[in-house]
């Protein structure tokens, strides 16, 4: 290194001077500093334990057991969270509902990421006509409030998917529908991000070099460009989980989401507002759980953004 005008600032100097760090190391160091993100991670683990560990204490059958004589019981020793309008135990239902909510969050976000990456990558990499068609389509998707679109689609698919059996559990077909439609309506933002990343990265020297040596397009897309645009994708995927969980809650709240008997934190709130004067426990416990999980995932996503993608801005 010479007397350099090339070193932009002290901070970089410090990073050069200390022993070399891998990207993962560096990310972890930045992430660790973000106390709220650590907090979010811990709460998220606790909520997962609650939903999956709780299954050791209650059977699903119990969570779906109705006894109208016990309807709308206030919280007590026997029913710590009270009972709902048909006498089901709310605590047990939040345990099983949590499983479904988390499942919906993760699978719908995965679907969103998959579609978003494919559309964004194809549009960004190939450009031209393909790009303009895909982007018009993306724009059309963004032209509709997502919730309204979800409601229409939920109505369209409702009753068309039969109940299915997963690991000995019967899942309402509406779970599949919800996952599918949330995934299908959430990708446009991610697709735009991925496209923008691809547009800038594909002009970089290493991509030009790969192209010059005749590397096939799919290999350039997946091995050269995608790994370099992973930071914003990871961040959106994380936030996407929180988005999917709360979208499910909104749709189910309106009675167009997951159908009984399968519980989710969202559909437990359905009609709860009708009993607001008499039975606060109907909405308080599932509502708090939804707030907690979206909050902790958002904290996590925020920390990841700072750690992976420090220059980006939050909206």
């Amino acid at each position: 290194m010479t007397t350099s005008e090339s070193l932009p600032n002290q901070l970089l100097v410090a990073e050069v001077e200390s022993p070399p760090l891998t990207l993962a190391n560096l990310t972890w160091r930045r992430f660790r500093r973000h106390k709220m993100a650590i907090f979010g991670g811990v709460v998220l683990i606790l909520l997962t334990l609650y939903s999956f560990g709780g299954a050791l204490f209650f059977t699903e059958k119990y969570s779906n057991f109705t006894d109208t004589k016990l309807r709308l019981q206030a919280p007590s020793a026997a029913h710590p969270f009270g009972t709902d309008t048909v006498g089901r135990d709310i605590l047990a239902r939040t345990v099983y509902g949590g499983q479904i909510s988390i499942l919906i969050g993760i699978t719908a976000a995965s679907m969103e990421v998959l579609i978003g990456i494919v559309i964004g990558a194809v549009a960004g990499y190939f450009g031209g006509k393909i790009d303009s068609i895909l982007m018009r389509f993306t724009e059309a998707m963004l032209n509709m409030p997502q919730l309204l679109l979800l409601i229409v689609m939920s109505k369209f698919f409702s009753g068309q998917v039969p109940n299915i059996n997963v690991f000995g559990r019967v899942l309402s077909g509406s779970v599949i529908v919800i996952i599918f439609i949330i995934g299908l309506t959430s990708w446009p933002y991610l697709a735009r991000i991925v496209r923008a990343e691809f547009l800038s990265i594909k002009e970089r020297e290493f991509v030009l070099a790969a192209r010059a040596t005749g590397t096939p397009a799919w290999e350039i897309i997946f091995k050269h460009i995608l790994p370099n645009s992973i930071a914003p994708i990871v961040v959106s995927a994380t936030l996407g989980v929180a988005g999917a969980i709360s979208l499910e809650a909104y749709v189910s709240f309106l009675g167009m989401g997951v159908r009984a008997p399968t519980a989710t934190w969202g559909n437990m709130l359905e009609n709860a507002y009708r009993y607001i004067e008499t039975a606060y426990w109907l909405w308080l416990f599932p509502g708090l759980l939804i707030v907690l999980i979206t909050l902790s995932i958002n904290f996590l996503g925020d920390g990841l953004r700072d750690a992976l993608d420090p220059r980006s801005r939050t909206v």
Partner: protein
Amino acid sequence: MSESKHTFLQVNDLKTRFHTPEGTVYAVNGVSFSLKEGETLAVVGESGCGKSVTMMSILRLIAIPPGEIVSGEVIYRDDDLLKLSESEMEHIRGREIAMIFQDPMTSLNPVLTVGRQLTETLRTHTPMTPEQCRERAVTLLDWVGIPDAANRLYEYPHQFSGGMRQRVMIAMALACTPSLLIADEPTTALDVTIQAQIIELVKRLKQDVGMAMIWITHDLGVVAGMADRVIVMYAGFIVEESEVDDLYENPRHPYTIALLQALPRADRRREKNLKSIQGAPPNMLTEPVGCPFAPRCEFVKEICIRENPLLEIVDGKHKSACWVDVKTGGLR
């Protein structure tokens, strides 16, 4: 420079730090210097040596936090600028002490017209009417060599070239005829031919206004033709201070010597290759114990590692912060 002029700016033991997530950056570590009326002082050093931070601390333009002016005083005429209130400071900035910056592309507000940005200084510091401000703005643009000044007032910065924007910046700085202009590498971001024009312009305007000037640069070549006195900074310390001619003929600090050797010169033969300074720039995240330049110094002695030398007079007006006599290679 004449001896009769008196000192109007005295900086004593200025220390500025930045508290960043990576740790505390020791940017300025006890800088003292003075300036006389009408004098031109050049401050030289590589990027990140604290020369800009020193000047920004004088005008209190450091963002606090993360920055902190830990100690020191900046005596301007009768006031310690570091003790003034923010609104008293606003009367100093732009009216008494003005500053121009490195990058004219980003230093002008993109959404306001050039005229607006020029006249707002006048509006703030003088009792002129809007009409008088406008006329004065035209005169100023004319003065810094912008053709068709009357019409260009209504244009936005993006409609000007880099050199023209720096002229606008200069016109803005000189609008209230300050007694000190601080120029923070004003030519670094410009083309070489434009650089020369701007330097000539500033020299001429300085004559017209009769102000003092501090010219920050990393380019010792620029200094020779315009400065009266030179300060060399390294790692937040002043390592050498001298009249300009003496510095070139008789450098006393190993860092200055290294800088001069890295400078291409017309009077030097080709075979004598340009030398670069070995080693990396200092880590500013720790307060240095010994001489900050010791790890890269070719004269390094054992004491240099242990103790940081003070800036002391070595010869007349020539000061240096070094244990070593560079002429003999032994300790002073």
